[in-house]
């Protein structure tokens, strides 16, 4: 028993790291979907751009990891706000399919551009000096940087959840989702609220990109690879439920890692098997609310 515990505990921690990146991405995605009703396919590209911005800041301007953690999300957030204002906002009142197609198209354009500029093999971002090395956790040596990622992600995810569920701004957001017309009559600028939400979600993706840069290879398709899993997580957590998404991210990060020991070839499938099973048993997701048919 003790042996099994010793073997599984390190893997549990590794799962948490992947879960952390999943959580940051899926929270942004679910916030955007919950309030804007847009399936933001370009989320993966925003993640990728965040990672590349950090890389460029380091290589061309000598700006290190910590400033990148602020600058990259700011740039991606502002650019995304502009895109929401000029383009995505026109899609709210038509079929969801258009939002999906538009954001998917935007992804292909962004990935194509970065592939053209940097090649498909991408670039390596080195772990920041202050976080390099390993920590002795007693049962294993763990890279210090990965621990930092877990802590940063938990803080940001909880922050987001509190912001939406416990603050006045959050209550406006939820109201804008329930009944935008009514909220307008109270003198709230709903379209500004939606823009801000979109920018916030995109900025979270860029934070995830910056955090992921030292772990994964920074490449034009890094977003596409991870988004497939993240979409499944959002479905499992319940579309639009922040709490459910966070829980699902960490659970699936761990489930994936455990599969890697038990049956390595199936590791990338595990998430989808769970998703399929859940869709059969509980279509609204782990924490999703059943929507009344409109």
């Amino acid at each position, binding site marked *: 028993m003790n042996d099994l515990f010793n073997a599984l505990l390190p893997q549990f921690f590794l799962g948490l790291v992947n879960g952390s990146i999943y959580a940051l991405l899926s929270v942004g995605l679910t916030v955007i979907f919950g309030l804007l009703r847009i399936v933001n396919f370009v989320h993966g590209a925003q993640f990728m751009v965040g990672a590349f911005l950090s890389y460029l800041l380091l290589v061309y301007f000598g700006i290190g990891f910590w400033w990148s953690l602020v600058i990259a999300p700011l740039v991606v957030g502002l650019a995304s706000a502009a895109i929401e204002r000029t383009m995505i906002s026109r899609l709210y009142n038509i079929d969801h399919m258009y939002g999906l197609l538009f954001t998917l198209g935007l992804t292909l354009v962004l990935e194509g551009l970065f592939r053209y500029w940097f*090649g498909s093999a991408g670039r390596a971002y080195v772990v920041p000096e202050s976080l390099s090395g*390993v920590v002795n956790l007693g049962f294993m040596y763990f890279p210090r940087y990965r621990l930092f990622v877990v802590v940063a992600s938990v803080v940001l995810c909880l922050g987001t959840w509190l912001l939406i569920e416990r603050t006045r701004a959050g209550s406006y957001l939820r109201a804008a989702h329930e009944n935008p017309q009514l909220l307008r009559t109270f003198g709230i600028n709903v379209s500004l609220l939606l823009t801000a939400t979109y920018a916030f979600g995109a900025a979270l993706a860029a934070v995830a990109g910056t955090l992921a840069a030292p772990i994964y*290879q920074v490449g034009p398709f890094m977003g596409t690879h991870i988004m497939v899993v993240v979409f499944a997580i959002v479905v499992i957590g319940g579309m639009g439920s922040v709490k459910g998404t966070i829980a699902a991210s960490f659970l699936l990060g761990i489930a994936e890692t455990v599969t890697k020991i038990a049956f390595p070839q199936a590791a990338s499938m595990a998430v989808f098997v769970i998703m399929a099973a859940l869709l059969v048993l509980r279509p609204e997701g782990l924490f999703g609310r059943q929507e009344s048919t409109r």
Partner: protein
Amino acid sequence: MIRKTAAALAVLAALTGPLMADENTIRIGVLTDMSGPFADIVGQGAVESVRLAVSDAGGKVNNKPIEVIFADHQNKPDVALSILRQWYEERGVDVAMEFTTSTVGLAAQALTRSANKVALPLGPATSDLYGAKCSPNSVVWGMDNYAFGNAAPKVVVKRGGDKWFLLVTDYTFGHQLQELVTNLVTSEGGKVVGAVRHPLGTPDFSTYLLQAQSLGANVIAFINSGNDMSTSIKQAREFGLNTKMQFVAPAFQIPNALALGLTVGQGVIVTNSVYWDQSDVTRAFSKRFMEKMKKVPSENQFMAYAAVQHYLKAVGQMKSHTDGKAVVEQMKKMPVSELDFKGRIRKDGRVIYDLNIASVKAPAESSGPFDVYKLTGKVPGDEGFVPEDKTGCTF
């Protein structure tokens, strides 16, 4: 109005209509990955290499002008075949080359044989191209599984790396290489203490890397390619595996080194077919290549030049270039001496040249962005590739 439209259509038809295969022009078609995961290794750079070879030949052979065209097969055999069919039947292409992946390579080689043209595979890594599926219309230039898996591991075992952990990508390329490396390590007196197969496109390898650590390996072999290879090497370093193990990456190529950077890639041991800084000849070619592509040529991009140069030399000895099989026979008669590829072409179509064993330099040892390899040994060509009596090739 109708007359105008008809006239316009007629002009259009004349412009796009079939160009029949003709005696008077030599057409080279580069069928490659222009935009996908292998575009850095082949792609536009391979096309530029071909153009350099053509311009060095003076743009014509036997007074026949040489034309170069290229297309993106998107790594899909069906797309590749429809382009190739059009090239052979309508555009008058005489020689098709590159092909990037094994699936595209095998399909293209078969079609080339039935059309009696010439195929010059560079990227595909399956030794079946000169083995079970060999063709009298092909000259195979590229490195293959066997050469990748044979050269570097042998040297590493000799240097004392005897406990191996294999990180294997879960498709044919990985499986074949895994079998090869396992046999080789065992026969050289080493032991494979563990192996794990991971799906293509895995973002996180930490679970597998911890296994390697707990099994007490002193060598870890990265039997994967592209992004998977870069990510797994980077993460192995993050977990400090480099302090206890040698890193071997058989299918590592120069673009991998450029993508990883020396801080992360240092110390990785690789099999290499040609390196830009190995001689005056390669340095001179790289300089010309860099004027166009702004980076040094990859192994396959060197081969693109060499393959075309050798093809044109053969055609120069012949009256007609339209019989593909005859051209290939002529090529096999002539020794290979293009750039630093010095050797011969075997009956089965395999080009034989010497291989390098190299390791990635540490940042302190490097004098510039492209100074990435330290050449540490050579493997004679006849040891590098599948021996002629073991390929099973019959035309």
